[in-house]
């Protein structure tokens, strides 16, 4: 039974993984719609926390949105699982690829949610950065990322079977990728992209303790680059991108993340612009397939294009009083982000070490 469950939840690799059904687009859209509601509910809850402080009830309106959506996602997966078993699939193979792990993450989310309820009753509500770091919240964030992976992995299976997909057929994976990125972005909220209180360049303008805050702002660029491009590079390496996909990923990411600070339109615009710059690099370099050098070049150039567009927007609009850093600073940090992207792309494309050498 335990082996059946570990196979169902896709937590160990098997050669017989091909026995699983490939998800239909119609099924993906059911899950994706609920995932989008779940994600918006969670981000609205983060906005509520950062605007009004902690809620007095763990079952606030936004909690109800994402808990209801999560429960329905679980019901959809469990219901589909047993229908597929009835249709002839083995118990351990009855969920489409990607959704077994998503179901495990959903169960984990339920456990973390219960722990959160108990934790709040015993020790009160988290304040400020505590909300990003408390054990029950970490459980919620990590399992949120896991349950969002379902549509991404399902699309990956479809791409491997059918080849390049259109933008419309890629949408569930794009929404899934954004929903995977957001919990990690929330955990890193102290160094995040939004234009309001958390804007990373904002810190560099503050006179008091300037060196300390400026240093923290620089670290913010590294954190964001590792996060955004870590996910994007994996995505791009595994799936050929239709025109508009990369711009849409960043636009959607910016718009939803902007809910936290009430800056959806502004952040969505800036992220779209930066995403468009990244997309131009993608289509110029063509990093897909087995082109390792092209992929590493994309890893280097993509963050540079992204941050240059970001700084360019601030410079042209003089938003918030301008960049607030010298040319050495903002150009230097942009170059650093290129190195981070290059390192990640290189690590992703290294040949595995020979087995014999490892055994010695």
């Amino acid at each position, binding site marked *: 039974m335990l082996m059946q469950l570990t196979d169902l939840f896709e937590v160990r690799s098997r050669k017989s993984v091909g026995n699983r059904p490939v998800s239909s687009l119609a099924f993906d859209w059911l899950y994706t*719609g609920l995932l989008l509601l779940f994600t918006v509910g969670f981000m609205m809850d983060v906005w509520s926390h950062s605007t009004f402080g902690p*809620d007095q009830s763990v079952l606030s309106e936004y909690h109800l949105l994402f808990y209801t959506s999560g429960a329905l996602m679980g019901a959809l997966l469990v219901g589909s699982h047993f229908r597929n078993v009835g249709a002839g699939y083995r118990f351990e193979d009855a969920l489409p690829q990607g959704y077994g792990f998503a179901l495990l993450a959903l169960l984990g989310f339920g456990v973390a949610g219960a722990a959160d309820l108990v934790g709040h009753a015993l020790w009160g509500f988290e304040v400020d950065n505590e909300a990003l770091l408390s054990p029950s919240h970490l459980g919620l964030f990590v399992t949120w990322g896991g349950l969002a992976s379902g549509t991404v992995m399902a699309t990956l299976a479809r791409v491997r079977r059918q080849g390049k997909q259109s933008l419309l057929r890629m949408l569930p994976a794009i929404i899934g990728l954004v929903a995977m990125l957001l919990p990690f972005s929330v955990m890193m909220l102290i160094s995040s992209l939004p234009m309001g209180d958390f804007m990373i360049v904002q810190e560099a303008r503050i006179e008091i303790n300037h060196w300390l805050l400026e240093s923290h702002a620089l670290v913010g660029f590294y954190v964001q680059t590792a996060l955004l491009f870590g996910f994007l590079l994996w995505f791009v390496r595994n799936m050929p991108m239709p025109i508009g996909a990369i711009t849409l990923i960043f636009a959607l990411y910016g718009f939803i993340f902007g809910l936290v600070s009430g800056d959806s339109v502004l952040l969505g615009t800036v992220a779209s612009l930066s995403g468009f710059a990244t997309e131009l690099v993608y289509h110029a370099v063509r990093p897909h397939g087995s082109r390792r050098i092209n992929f590493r070049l994309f890893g280097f150039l993509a963050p540079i294009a992204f941050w240059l567009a970001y700084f360019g927007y601030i410079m042209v609009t003089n938003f918030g009083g301008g960049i607030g850093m010298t040319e050495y600073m903002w150009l230097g940090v942009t170059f650093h982000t290129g190195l981070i992207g290059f390192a990640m792309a290189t690590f992703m494309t290294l040949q595995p070490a020979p087995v014999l050498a490892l055994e010695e």
Partner: protein
Amino acid sequence: MRKLIILITMMLIAIVALPASAQEEPNTNWLSALLGEAEINERLYYRVPLARDYEATVHGNRLQGIGHLEFNIVDSDGEALSADNSVDLTVTYDASWEENGEAYSIFQQEDYSATYQDGSFYIADINWEYQGGYDLNLNIDGADYYLYLYVPPAKPDATTTFIGANIAIPFGFLIVMLGAYRVFNVQFLPENRRQGSQAK
């Protein structure tokens, strides 16, 4: 499928009807009333200017603008400050902003007396009428101290309709999609079921 839709519809009606019948005044506490009220220790947000040579921790309760404030001050040597008895202080709220082209400003200054007991300074019935930053100036043993407190806006009570909508929207989405799939005969089960060796 029909049974599933009926079941989901019944659950939806039950969940939406429950808060509507259980609560006359719309707020978010209807479920906590079912679960039992937990005693919540709400701490005020505080921000201390980094240039100051002290640290402060502040906590208290805020209820409809009036609450109490309890705080400790630790100097740069890590020594907690104390006082023989009460300390006088002034609380200032000074804000100005523009809205629809009109300029507004609020200036509110009130004197309080903070009592020192059990290692903390304590002010009863402090007025937090406005959301935003409050400046607290106090003098302890001849030295001036300054605290900056940020009071977040009070969260407006959610209406029962809004709470119900947050539950109903995911259900509604699923019902509409399943209904549309049924009407347009869209197969959402896996494409390759009953194919290959995996079928029984």
